[in-house]
């Protein structure tokens, strides 16, 4: 009956993805997106790929924090007051309970057998493959991340100087 859990998580992913497209306020869409990512991380954890699931969760948390900070900058709070639904607290509580359950699942659930025993996707195995077979990709991605950070910082500093602020 392990497949039942997969189907539950897949249904959660698809429902959250559908809601993130259809829901009107952008903050709710971002929360639905978080729900979808956490459900995918739950599926990955069930497949014995816990490191990848935690990497996915941490990257999503970081990007969503930046997203929410940006949304707070550009948000129209008067419009937010109009678009808050009546049962917002119930909805947010439901999402919170779902997120807690899925996070607890990441810690306590053993792996799912798909056909035979699941392969070993532990951190040493992944690290070995990453640095033995995909060393060039790692270097390219590291250069990409570094250039991206430097470019963004340079852009923001230049903009600050143009506005007359202290860089």
């Amino acid at each position: 009956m392990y497949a039942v859990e997969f189907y539950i998580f897949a249904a959660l992913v698809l429902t959250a993805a559908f809601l993130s497209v259809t829901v009107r306020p952008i903050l709710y869409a971002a929360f639905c997106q978080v729900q979808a990512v956490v459900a995918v991380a739950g599926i990955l954890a069930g497949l014995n790929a816990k490191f990848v699931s935690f990497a996915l969760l941490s990257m999503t948390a970081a990007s969503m924090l930046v997203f929410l900070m940006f949304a707070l900058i550009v948000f129209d709070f008067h419009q937010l007051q109009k678009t808050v639904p009546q049962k917002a607290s119930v909805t947010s509580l439901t999402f919170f309970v779902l997120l807690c359950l899925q996070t607890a699942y990441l810690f306590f659930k053993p792996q799912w057998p798909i056909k035979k025993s699941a392969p070993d996707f532990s951190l040493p195995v992944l690290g070995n493959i990453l640095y033995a077979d995909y060393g060039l990709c790692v270097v390219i991605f590291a250069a990409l991340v570094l250039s991206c950070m430097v470019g963004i910082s340079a852009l923001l500093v230049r903009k600050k100087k143009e506005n007359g602020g202290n860089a």
Partner: protein
Amino acid sequence: MSIDVPVILTVSSFLVFFGLWGVLRHRRDLMRILLALQLIFLGSLFNFSMGSALFYEASGLILSLFIACLTGIQTVASLALFLLYFQKHDHLMTDRAEMMKG
């Protein structure tokens, strides 16, 4: 009941479809487009991870790591650019973005 390849492909295709639908539905709002693009990336990540588990090959998980990394870079870089654009033009609507410099 088992986890079959068609089910996995269906879920990931629906994720990509929702992403494309989101891009087309909210094509005037840059931030909603960004969220929809993340859905597309999530679909491909799901596909690679499940394929990796099905075929007992860890390369899919490595590619999933790269995709997650790419999604984070894309989100943060585009939000920084959006912030610059918003400070200058006071909106994030694509149909009013014809005055962008190269």
